[in-house]
């Protein structure tokens, strides 16, 4: 057993304990130093992930391959950027307690455990380690009724999803005889008909993971939780947990259950199509920008799951590229939303952006870039994300899926472009406060990525290709 393979996770866990101890002891406020330490620990972990060898450890419970490295880097990126967005916000809202950064660290660690899971037990523990800090940070603004409601709602429904996952896992163990993904793959490749018990188990596991990525029909919690949670937390919700859960979904379905694809492919097709349609139509009427982003994220998950549903090499590569681009569009958009303050008070209506094009041209320009990218308009990065999943669907012969995808992205362009119209052509009630430096840096960095992706897409495409090949080998 080579425990050193799991060095990134171990280092991150120990760093979290050290930061926790360092934050408790001093009497004064340690939010900023603790956050910086967490970002440092995440960077160190990212370096370790890049240098990680391939193989399995702990008797096959843990796996490291290029797929896991790719998704882990995205998870870490989501965690670190989410924390950066929270720096300024938490100080202004009086939420500057250092436990926030430690909880973000452990949620990211949970995501990494999920991505590296090669056993149903690891899957479950990773999922819990990811979810539990999320419930807490959703309710972090404990004096605000909406935040508490968001935390409670997420907790109750999340517990239900965990129950579904455990039930499905127990059925899979009962009917296939193992919880280990490699041994499940062996048992299922024998070629006989999958037993109904196994299929029911797979369905339960898919339902639980679909809940975590907020795919239709398990999306009902998303708008309320996204609206109620503090804005940087919403940004974090839309990144790290989705990446980890989608990675796990891809690994479970395409790995051990790849040979029984006929059993789950229909489900994934419906989930993907439902998410795209709901994300496109339900967001149209939204006036609150956080609710709008919640529906937008449901739609994006639908496009990403298209890559799983087609169950092919190209599909998986499209999924990986999509998630990488999605993270960087999303964090930029949320940097703008976090910066939305008027007279020191946070505002979150779409109409509050009115006139931003004249009062703060820089922020308005980046927001326009993100909105065009989200809508999938070339030559921005979002277009390429959609291009690769649609391409995979067409190559796999899933014409209906690809058509629905194109049509819904046209519909969703309406509400993305409406934000641009509000910013540049509507009469504002007053200027928003200047965006703090940390948020401007995040906006500029992710904005440049979205603009310049077309010039140099090779590294991400190559990494995604290698990662997809590793999972389907």
């Amino acid at each position, binding site marked *: 057993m080579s*425990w050193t393979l*799991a060095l990134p996770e171990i280092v991150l*866990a120990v760093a979290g304990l050290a930061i*926790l101890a360092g934050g408790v002891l001093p009497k004064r406020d340690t939010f900023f130093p603790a956050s910086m330490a967490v970002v440092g620990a995440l960077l160190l972990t990212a370096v370790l992930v890049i240098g990680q060898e391939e193989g399995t*450890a*702990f*008797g096959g*419970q*843990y796996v490291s391959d290029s797929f896991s490295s790719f998704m882990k880097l995205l998870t870490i990126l989501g965690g670190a950027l989410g924390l950066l967005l929270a720096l300024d916000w938490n100080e202004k809202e009086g939420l500057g*307690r250092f*436990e*926030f950064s*430690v*909880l973000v660290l*452990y949620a990211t*660690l949970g995501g990494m*455990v999920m991505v590296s899971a090669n056993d149903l*037990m*690891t899957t479950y*523990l*990773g999922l*819990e*380690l990811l979810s*539990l*800090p999320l*419930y*807490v940070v959703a*309710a*972090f603004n*404990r004096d605000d009724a909406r935040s508490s409601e968001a*935390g409670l709602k997420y907790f109750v429904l999340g517990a239900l999803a965990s129950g579904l996952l455990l039930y499905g896992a127990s*059925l899979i163990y*009962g009917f296939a*005889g*193992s*919880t280990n993904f490699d041994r499940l793959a062996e048992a299922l490749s024998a070629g006989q008909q999958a*037993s*109904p*018990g196994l299929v*029911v188990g797979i369905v339960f596991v898919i339902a639980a993971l679909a809940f975590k990525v907020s795919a239709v029909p398990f999306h009902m919690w998303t708008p309320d939780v996204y609206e109620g949670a503090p804005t940087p937390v919403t940004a974090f919700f839309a990144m790290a947990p989705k990446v980890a859960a989608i990675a796990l979904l891809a690994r479970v379905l395409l790995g051990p259950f790849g040979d029984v694809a006929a059993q789950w492919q229909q489900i994934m097709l419906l989930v993907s199509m439902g998410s795209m349609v709901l994300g496109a139509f339900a967001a149209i009427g939204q006036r609150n920008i956080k609710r709008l982003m919640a529906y937008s994220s449901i739609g994006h998950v639908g496009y990403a799951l298209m890559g799983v549903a087609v169950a092919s090499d190209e599909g998986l590569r499209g999924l990986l590229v999509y998630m990488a681009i999605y993270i960087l569009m999303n964090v930029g958009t949320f940097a703008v939303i976090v910066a939305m303050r008027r007279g020191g008070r946070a505002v979150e209506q779409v109409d509050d952006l009115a006139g931003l094009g004249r009062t703060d041209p820089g922020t308005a320009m980046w927001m326009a870039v993100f909105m065009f990218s989200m809508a999938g308009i070339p030559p921005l990065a979002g277009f390429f994300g959609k291009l690769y999943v649609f391409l995979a669907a067409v190559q796999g012969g899933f014409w209906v899926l690809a058509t629905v995808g194109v049509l819904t992205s046209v519909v969703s362009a309406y509400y993305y472009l409406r934000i641009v119209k509000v910013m540049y052509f509507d009469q504002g009630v007053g200027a928003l406060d200047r965006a703090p430096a940390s948020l401007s840096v995040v906006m500029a960095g992710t904005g440049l990525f979205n603009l310049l992706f077309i010039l140099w897409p090779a590294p991400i495409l190559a990494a995604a290709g290698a990662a997809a090949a590793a999972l389907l080998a």
Partner: protein
Amino acid sequence: MITAFAFYAFAAVLIASAAMVVTSRNPVHSVLFLILAFFNAAALFLIAGAEFLAMILVIVYVGAVAVLFLFVVMMLDVDFTRMREGFQRYAPLGAVVGAILFLELAFVIGAWTFAGDAEELRLSPMPAGGVSNAEAIGRILYTDYVYLFQAAGLVLLVAMIGAIVLTLRERPGTRRQDIAAQIGRAGTVNLRAVPSGAGLASLGIERPPSPEEERRPAPVAVGHDGHGGGHH
């Protein structure tokens, strides 16, 4: 024979009490039935030869979890009649979903067959040679499953951090025990040689004045509140 009888007796009570947990009207009764269910499950573990799990079940679930439930149910004034208001409206939908799930489960159980070599396929078979099962669990928990064990530990740590973050409020006005001040207080302890048989009053041994009395020049002899504020 006796084992089989005990198994069916405990299993029957377990199922009956589990049914009562769901159906009983009074939530306190539900929790009490839950405790009964835990005890019967522990007995089933004992019959199966897993005495460690049986004891853990009693200690953790009955001793901690169920008592906590009982506390919460009794302390929170939950109006259960109001909670049942929507029941009539949602009952048909719930019944449909439940019926579908039940049918699926019936299919699943219909297809259930035991593998011929189920004994050998077990993930962690009991080691031979007089190893107690606490030791057997310990052997694999800290070796093969150390990764999962530590991950579970982190989950509990996060739960603890979360509970503290969401509930702890620093109140500025509260008085706390200041041990340094307590120890550093001068003149509180006197050593005297006391002849046996003499009363304190006749010897004229006085107690040292409390801080309030030191501040107030006119001391009251009886009925003092005695313990300097906060120095409990």
